[in-house]
Every structure is written in structure tokens, then in C-alpha cells.
């Protein structure tokens, strides 16, 4: 018995690990029934794998049997691998047992498609329902939306899940068509839109009726694979931006493609995953969501690719030297946030602290800004008058000579075109 469950867990965790989302935050499910678990408040990473990724949820597939043959997926029909399937009770027991020991924040349940979409979705919903109703489980549940599942099933899933997600897989429709001819972005848009509308409808209802059930309280997310198909960074981020705007997504995840197939449409096995590119995309994503940047400022037809050697915020600043230096003692919060080396926390502190007197550089350093980077873009109480306009390439050289990026040691598989 125990050997079989160990083998299943191995196969089905291994197959699920390419889905990068592991967030357990954003829900508001409190433990009010004296049951197990509480998904109220911030997420928790209970451990990190040796590749440095957060482990917050028990992330598994219900089964890796699949009727589809998507070239980028390890569980594709034509791939010769071991197959397995959990029973409903096995998943419930594992989740409860792991949660009780404080190993996890909850369950992330995905699945290969067996028989058809409804059949698969129904199994996923059954597990979530059993956890919630029979086991009084209030931990976090992330359910995958199976493309093509009926609206009744999606509605039911939304009542038990904290978050739901459905993957775009490839950033553009043409990329997807190349590797998974049976799939289309429309299959993704439909359920994303349906769940978004249901969330809004219930929110409105809540204004009138007090006890409206929770419905996907932590919202929806999606993922796209980067580097399997030849999209530019601009195409990727424009696509992400569109989904953030149209579907009110909480997160878009970018997953550097890890070669798992000899298919000649994609990078060959053994190719390094594009980790640096992935990192730059996440930095851009953050700038869009927390730093007030419009995606068009960061990426446009003049600059369709993110710089490899410097981050997108610094890159933007160097392209817009006419907007700097700014005086931190008088500038708008909005502009302070745009200074390379100043984060959200420090920007807020600066705005509060400057009410008590003009800030000096030593105070800025104590507040916690990356002063060596920021100093090229700011003025403060003890700044020395500077006569020459700083030259962008010169500033870049100074900053690069002082910083040693952790990525410079990582081998690069993306060659620049020029």
C-alpha cells in the first residue's frame, strides 16, 4: 500500500511541477467551523526546492493520462512515460495529512484530460467538495480550469476553490497552434471570462444580500511558457497586459521552457532553460503592477526585447535621462518610485520622512534604498551641484562595474541578434 502511494506521488508530483504557480495568498477563507486550516491572509512558502522555487501547496496531477498531444508537455499522449492516477480519497488524505503537519498551505490540483473535459473537471470538483464539506478543510485550494468544461461544473468548482487558473501555454495564438494544433486561446478566454463575470456578479449581490457564498476569492491566474516558440519579449508582455486588463487576473506566470522532448520545433534537450529572460519578464510584470509603468514605456517597437545585462527599470531610466535627476525632497511619489534602486517600501518612507526635514544621503541609505544605483538619478539635501548632464552609457558602465549580477555566471542560450 505505502509503496504504491509513494510511486503515484512521485509520478504525479513530477508531472505537475512545470506549472510554476505556487501562490497561496489573496484568499479570505477563515476557519470559522472549528475545522482544519485557515486561508486568510498572506501566503506562506513552507520550503523551497533545490532550484529555489517556493513550495507552498501540494502540487499534483490527479492523473497524467491525457488524450492530447501537446508538444511542450511531458504528459502528452505520445510520450513514453509511466502513467498513474490518484483516487479521490488518496488526494484528500494526502492533503489533510500534509496540512496537519504544517508541510503545506493547501492543494494545487491539476490533471491530464482523460475521456473528456467534463469528466475530468467533475473529478477535480469532487475532491475539492469532499475536502470542504466532509473534512471541514479551510486551507487553500487552487483548481485548474479544464478547457471545455461546462459552466455548471465551473460554477461548482468556484464555490470550493480559492483560486482557479487556466494556462495560455504559449504567449501567442500562432505559437500555440504550432505546438498544440488542437488547442486555441479562445478555449482559455471563454472560461476566464465566465469566471470573472461570476465573481463580479456575486460581488454585486453581496452588496444586497449578506450571506453570499465565496466564489474564487483569490481570483484567477494563468501561465505562459517562454522560449519554446520565437515570440519577442514585447509580444509576451503585451499579451500578459491584455489578460491582466481584460480578465482581471491576479497573476500571469512566465515559465522558462525546460526541454523535455526531441521535437524539432523546439529547443533540444539539454538546452539551458532561459532563466535570466524569465527573471526579466517577472521584473517587467512587477513594474506594470506595482510601479505604475505602462507596458508600452518598457517595451515597444523600438525596444522589443528586454536588456540582458540590466533590469528593465534601469533600462527605462537610462533611455529617459531627461526626466532625471529628481529631488527626492520635492518629487512626486510617482517619480520617486521610478528611480532605479528605490522600491515601494523605501519610496513610501521617503515621502513620510521628508515632512520632518530635507533628507540627506546618509538618511536615504539608512531607509534602505540601493544608494549606489539611485545616486545617479536623484538629488538630496547634501548633493553636490553637478555641471554636466550625465551620459547614459557612462552611468550604465558605473552601475555595472559596481554590481555583480547573480546571472552573469549562468550560461546564456539567448544570443543577441546584433
Amino acid at each position: 500500500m505505502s509503496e504504491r502511494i509513494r510511486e503515484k506521488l512521485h509520478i504525479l508530483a513530477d508531472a505537475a511541477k512545470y506549472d510554476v504557480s505556487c501562490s497561496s495568498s489573496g484568499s479570505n477563507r477563515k476557519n470559522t467551523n472549528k475545522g482544519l486550516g485557515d486561508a486568510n491572509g498572506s501566503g506562506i512558502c513552507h520550503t523551497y526546492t533545490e532550484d529555489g522555487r517556493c513550495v507552498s501547496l501540494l502540487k499534483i496531477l490527479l492523473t497524467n493520462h491525457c488524450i492530447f498531444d501537446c508538444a511542450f508537455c511531458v504528459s502528452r499522449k505520445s510520450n513514453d512515460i509511466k502513467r498513474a492516477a490518484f483516487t479521490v480519497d488518496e488526494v484528500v488524505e494526502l492533503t489533510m495529512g500534509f496540512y496537519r503537519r504544517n508541510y503545506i498551505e493547501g492543494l494545487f490540483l491539476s490533471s491530464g484530460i482523460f475521456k473528456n473535459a467534463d469528466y475530468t473537471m467533475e473529478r477535480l470538483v469532487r475532491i475539492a467538495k469532499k475536502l470542504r464539506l466532509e473534512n471541514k478543510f479551510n486551507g487553500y485550494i487552487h483548481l485548474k480550469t479544464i478547457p471545455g468544461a461546462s459552466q455548471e461544473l465551473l460554477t461548482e468548482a468556484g464555490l470550493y476553490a480559492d483560486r482557479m487558473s487556466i494556462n495560455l501555454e504559449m504567449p501567442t495564438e500562432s505559437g500555440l497552434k504550432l505546438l498544440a494544433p488542437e488547442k486555441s486561446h479562445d478555449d482559455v478566454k471563454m472560461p476566464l471570462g465566465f469566471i470573472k463575470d461570476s465573481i463580479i456578479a456575486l460581488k454585486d449581490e453581496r452588496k444586497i444580500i449578506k450571506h453570499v457564498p465565496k466564489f474564487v476569492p483569490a481570483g484567477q491566474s494563468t501561465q505562459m511558457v517562454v522560449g519554446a516558440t520565437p515570440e519577442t519579449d514585447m509580444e509576451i508582455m503585451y499579451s500578459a497586459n491584455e489578460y491582466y486588463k481584460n480578465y482581471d487576473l491576479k497573476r500571469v506566470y512566465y515559465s522558462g521552457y525546460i526541454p523535455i522532448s526531441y521535437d524539432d520545433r523546439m529547443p533540444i534537450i539539454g538546452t539551458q532553460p532561459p532563466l535570466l529572460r524569465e527573471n526579466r519578464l517577472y521584473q517587467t510584470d512587477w513594474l506594470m503592477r506595482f510601479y505604475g509603468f505602462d507596458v508600452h514605456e518598457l517595451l515597444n517597437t523600438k525596444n522589443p526585447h528586454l536588456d540582458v545585462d540590466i533590469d528593465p527599470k534601469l533600462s527605462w531610466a537610462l533611455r529617459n535621462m531627461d526626466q532625471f535627476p529628481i529631488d527626492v525632497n520635492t518629487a512626486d511619489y510617482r517619480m520617486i518610485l521610478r528611480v532605479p534602486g528605490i522600491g515601494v517600501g523605501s519610496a513610501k518612507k521617503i515621502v513620510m520622512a521628508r515632512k520632518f526635514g530635507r533628507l540627506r544621503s546618509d538618511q536615504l541609505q539608512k531607509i534602505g534604498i540601493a544608494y549606489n544605483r539611485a545616486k545617479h538619478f536623484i538629488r538630496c539635501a547634501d548633493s553636490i551641484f553637478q555641471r554636466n548632464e550625465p551620459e547614459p552609457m557612462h552611468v550604465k558602465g558605473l552601475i555595472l562595474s559596481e554590481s555583480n549580477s547573480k546571472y552573469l555566471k549562468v550560461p546564456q542560450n539567448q544570443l543577441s541578434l546584433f
Partner: protein
Amino acid sequence: METYVFDGSLEGLLTAIFEFYERKPKSIALVSKQHFEPLLLTEVFEVVSDEPKARRVWEGMRKKIGSDWLLRFYKAFLSEQPVMFQQLFVFACYIFDNPKGAEQNFGHPAVIAVTQMERSVSRERHRMKAFIRFQETIDGIFYAPVEPDYNVLPLIGTFFKNRYADQRWMIYDLKRKYGLYYDLQSVTEIVLEQLPETKSAAYLKKDLLHDKEQLYGLLWQDYFKSTNIPARKNMKLHIRHVPKRYWKYLTEKLPDPDAYF
């Protein structure tokens, strides 16, 4: 300069602040008894912890800075760092001597010191929420030994109570020799006369553990390995997120599963 020596408790620290305003010396150094080394020429004033005095200071601060900042003050205190006591004293005086809102002056050294220490303690509290691993005993109590850098148990009781409302649990701070115990009703502080027998540093002897404990430990270790992507290996990042000093108590980091079960 006078040296105020207090007993190391929050009540003592607050009393010291009260005495300072009562006795009005020019400046003082605040030291806990534990860290006090008498020198020939220091003038010493021994602070006697006094609840009503402490309460007055506490409430006075609440009026000035509100509950949020009061919690920050308390968290910084739980760091138990000798230099912090002096900083908290300076911070309190700065708050009392200035109009409302002074705590937002992030250019002031004491405000910065308290803020930074509060963040550090919060980080340790968060790590405890993440890294605590329970082992189920034969009598159905979920037991977790810990050795946090700071005294964070007072900050995590409610969190674990809300989360594990339907199971009895005990979190024991081996460094500070006290723990929290939840009996399905409420959380109480306890001191164990004798610690349960362990096989390794962290793991209870097999005959103290529930039948299922070994399997869950193994499954978790398996899962930890299976969910890793070797092509992305990045040990530096791994260790930054899971510092080595915590490995001792992490089920997934124990070297050989048979060695401890």
C-alpha cells in the same frame, strides 16, 4: 550619565521609561540585568518593575502612535537584543517629546532602528509559521520543537490556533525552555519538566510516534524531491530561502529517513 538596570521584561522596560520622566536625569543608558557589567564610576539606578507605571507608559504611547506602532515596539522588544533596549528607550522619548506623527520620521535613527528590528523579528515569526514541522504522537498531540533566533512564540499562538483548531498541538522553544500548548479550547504557555525522548535532534523516538507519522514523513521527503526541477538547480537561492540553521528541524532536509524513524 546614569545607568538604569531593569529585569529584562517589557514591564521593566516601560517602568524605566516612567522613572526617567519622573526622576528627570539628563541622559541614561538602559541595560538589562542579564547584560549589566558594573563599572566603578557608573551611577546605577535599579528599576523595579511596576505594573501601573508600565501601563501608564503603554497607554500613553498608544495615544501617541496607535496600536500598529505599539505592536512594532513590542516586536522589536522580543528581539531580546541588548542594543535594542536602549533604542526602544530613545524611541519612546522621541515619541513623548514630539507632537503626534513623529514615528513616521524615517530619517530619525531610533525610528529606523526600531523599524529594522521589527522587520527582522517579523521575518523570524514568518519563518516559524513556515518551517515548523509537527510530528503526531501516539496520544494524538502534534509536537514541534523549535529554536527561533528571537522570542517569537508570543507572536504565533493565535495563528496556529486558528489554523489547527481541530487538533491538539504543542510548539516548544528549546532555547528559551517554554512552549505553547493548544488543548482544542485555548493556547497556554507551558514549561516541560522533562522533554520527550528524541532519536535525532528533532525527531521523537519511534515508540512515541503515531503509526502514520513515518509514512507521512517519507511521502513529504519524496514530494520535496519530485517537485524539484534539476535543470534549474540553484542551491544559492535555495539556501538563501531556507537557511541552514533551520534544516535540523525540517523533515524534508533530514539526510536519511531511516536514521530518524
